[in-house]
């Protein structure tokens, strides 16, 4: 039961700053998802937490224990941490069972215990009977699973996953992810999950941290980062978003394409608003007061559909639940039924 506290971390490599005054906090037993574009430093952050890189400044705490203070670090092998790198990195000279049992100290565990734990892990990842296979005989997804098992076998207090599920097919990904998360919760393990999959971040995590250029821009619960992003860029990071030109008027209202109120007040501020696609309703009650548009495209996903509508000069994507009976070419009325998230130009965090 260990929390993870990172404070003003700074990591450079070859005179280039990779992590810049980064702060992140994960409560004990929490699963944190780390979302961000490639190159923003996610892997570096993970490796700093694992103790594989020495920072130049900042602190890292595991619970009460200070593991990293400026460039003084507790060596990696002294931190009880699970690390699953992006490529799995199985030991090619050991079979699956030996890979999984690698971290189990033979001085502490008996042979039977080791065998038992290995069996449990194989069962967890759905690879019973694979004990004696060599890593080069496994598919990419199987290798990932073994790497996961290897990290979890030592029941670490903190686990770091670097895009572990990306090599798996959709069904396997969902199932395995669910199992792994159950396991983590059962042991109250603190975890950081680096992912580029927005939905995976929202569904798996207790807290989502959005990273950009070596900094954490926003951290909060999935609902928070989804509903209340602090910038349009963050909004796009956490889900589909419509970013529309908008103006704040002198009478306090906001003018934008879907706003039915036609005010004649002066524009005071320019900016953008962010709307989620499901926050727009479409219906056939066309009127002169409604904002109308023509359906140009329908992407049907089974449980819902994304409708592309041409409204005036804009092209808007709207999410509606299936089933529906709209068709391409139809004229529909659009209604915005969500919060108004206005971001003024020049005053918004990236």
């Amino acid at each position, binding site marked *: 039961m260990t929390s993870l506290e990172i404070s003003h971390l700074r990591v450079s490599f070859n005179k280039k700053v990779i992590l810049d005054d980064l702060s992140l906090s994960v409560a004990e037993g929490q699963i944190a998802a780390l979302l961000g574009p490639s190159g923003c430093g996610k892997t570096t952050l993970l*490796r700093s937490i*694992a*103790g*594989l*890189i*020495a920072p130049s400044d900042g602190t890292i705490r595991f619970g009460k224990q200070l593991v990293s203070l400026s460039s003084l670090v507790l*060596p*990696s*092998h*002294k*931190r*009880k*941490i*699970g*690390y*699953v*790198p*992006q*490529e799995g*990195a*199985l*030991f*090619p*000279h050991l079979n699956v069972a030996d890979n999984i049992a*690698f*971290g189990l*100290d033979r001085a502490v565990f008996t042979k039977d215990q080791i065998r038992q734990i290995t069996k449990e892990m194989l069962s967890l990842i759905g690879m019973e009977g694979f004990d004696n296979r*060599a*890593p*080069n*005989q496994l598919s990419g997804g199987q*290798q990932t699973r073994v*790497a996961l098992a*290897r*990290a979890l076998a*030592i029941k670490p207090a903190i686990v*770091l996953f670097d895009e572990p599920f990306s090599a798996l097919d959709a069904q396997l990904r969902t199932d395995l992810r669910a199992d792994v998360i159950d396991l983590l919760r059962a042991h109250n393990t603190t975890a950081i999950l680096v992912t580029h999959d927005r939905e995976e971040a929202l569904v798996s995590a207790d807290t989502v941290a959005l990273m950009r250029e070596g900094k954490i821009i926003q951290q909060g619960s999935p609902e928070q980062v989804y509903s209340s992003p602090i910038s349009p860029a963050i909004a796009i990071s956490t889900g589909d978003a419509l970013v529309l030109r908008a103006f704040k008027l002198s009478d306090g209202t906001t003018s934008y394409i879907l706003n039915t109120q036609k005010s004649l007040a002066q524009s005071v501020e320019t900016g953008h608003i962010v709307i989620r696609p499901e926050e727009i309703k479409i219906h056939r009650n066309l009127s002169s007061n409604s904002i109308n548009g023509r359906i140009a495209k329908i992407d049907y996903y089974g449980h819902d559909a994304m409708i592309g509508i041409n409204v005036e000069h804009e092209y808007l994507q709207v999410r509606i639940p299936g089933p529906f009976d709209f068709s391409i070419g139809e004229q529909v009325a659009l209604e915005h039924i969500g919060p108004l998230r206005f971001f003024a130009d020049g005053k918004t965090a990236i």
Partner: protein
Amino acid sequence: MNTRMQRALKLSLNSAVGMVAALSMIPLVYLFVRASDKPMGEIVQLLVRQKTLDVLTTTILMVVCVVAITLFFGVAIASGLHFVHLPLRRLLIIPTVLPLAIPSYVFTYTWIALVPSFSGFAAAVFILSLTTLPYIILVTLAGLRSVDGSQIEVARSLGLNYRQTFFRVVFPQIRGHASAGALLAGLYAMSDFGAVSLLNVETLTVSIQNMYRASYDRSAAAVISFVLIAFAVLFVIAEESIKTKSPDGQIVKTFSTKHALIRKRPLQVTVMFAVITFGVVAVVIPFYVLLTRFFSNPVGIDWRSLLTATISTITVAAIGAIIALVLSAPLGVLLSGKVTSFGRIAERTIVVGAALPGVVVGLALVSIGSKLGALYQTTLLLAFAYALLFLAKSVASMTSSLARVPNGVKEVAATFGMNQWSVVRKVIAPIAAPGIGLGTILVFLTAMKELPATLMLRPTGFETLATQIWSSTSINRFNEAAPFALILVLVAAIPSFYISRPDKADRAFI
């Protein structure tokens, strides 16, 4: 490609390999013919007499010592260079590789000049270890580079400190590489004559040479040569059994992470100390002695003969390396696919040939070459001798380079409608070429230093740097030998340096 074409190709490949193996057996056939000149009783007598057993024991002990020392220091230094953060890290590898440029007899001369009482078994082990350490270092470095940095990070995160990580994760994966280097080192130690004879140690090669001198008894020399071959065969088999224990499955990596370098002070100091000591002992001291020997008794340098010898050396060594390349190609191609027992036997035959001293190969080719009329004592025949002498090296690098071409790549190319030849040209060659090129350079380097076969097979009047060194030192004129020795080392240093560069080295071997 249809099966008839496939079978035809396979047949021609196998016959090419067979021809090359047969060529490499020329010395063996020669030895057999010579040995059979003796009645069986005498042969047995020769084999079992105390002297033969003593010499065999000395040879075995020496090889074991050299292999043990070079393995230990080689793996240690290579690991230090790879894992530890050192200033000017990229430059530090140069002194560890430069000894490749220095012939063992030059090493020995310089150390004798420095320490007059320098002689005996320990001295021989010392010199031979110096000469062969670069092989192990280069080969081990190549192996280390192929170990994914992420594995080390995972191991450490699982609670292993550096030492444990090295022995449980790194070492098992480089064992095969290190043992291949040990093979080269051991075979070289077995075949060396220059150093051991100067140091008064009688190994099998010295014994063979003495037989030629004693009674001009080439049959006796041939019989003793078979003892050497028998030992070499055992040695090769022993090395193979070690090699197969280590895993050969390579998970084809699309990228590998660079691990952070270790910054522990004691380790950094130790590695620096080891590298610098080796550099001083193996490079600085020979150079120093050569230079002082020259300047203490300066004679006018014959620039013209220096230039001619240099050009001759480079030319014939280069041709030899290319011939070796051509000869090793069929076997390389064969061994990079599915390994057949035919391929294995061919490889072993060629590798065992590396144990034979230059004088034996030289005489074998004299025996055959003198019957070839105009071809005898030509540059071409000499180059061919070099190719034969160092074929093992060429085969080793050829095989490993071709093995790096992932099977999937070949198959994908085939689906694009490429025939076998196009696949070789457009896909396999670009991937394997760097490694093969570097192996060829290694043969070139070794050929430049060769002496006994050169003396016998060169065109009359054709001087290499090695023959010039010999002709001066044989009458004790070390000061006259020095310029040639210096030029030889400097010229050879260029390809040595090239091989040592990190991005190149790992493709030279494994």
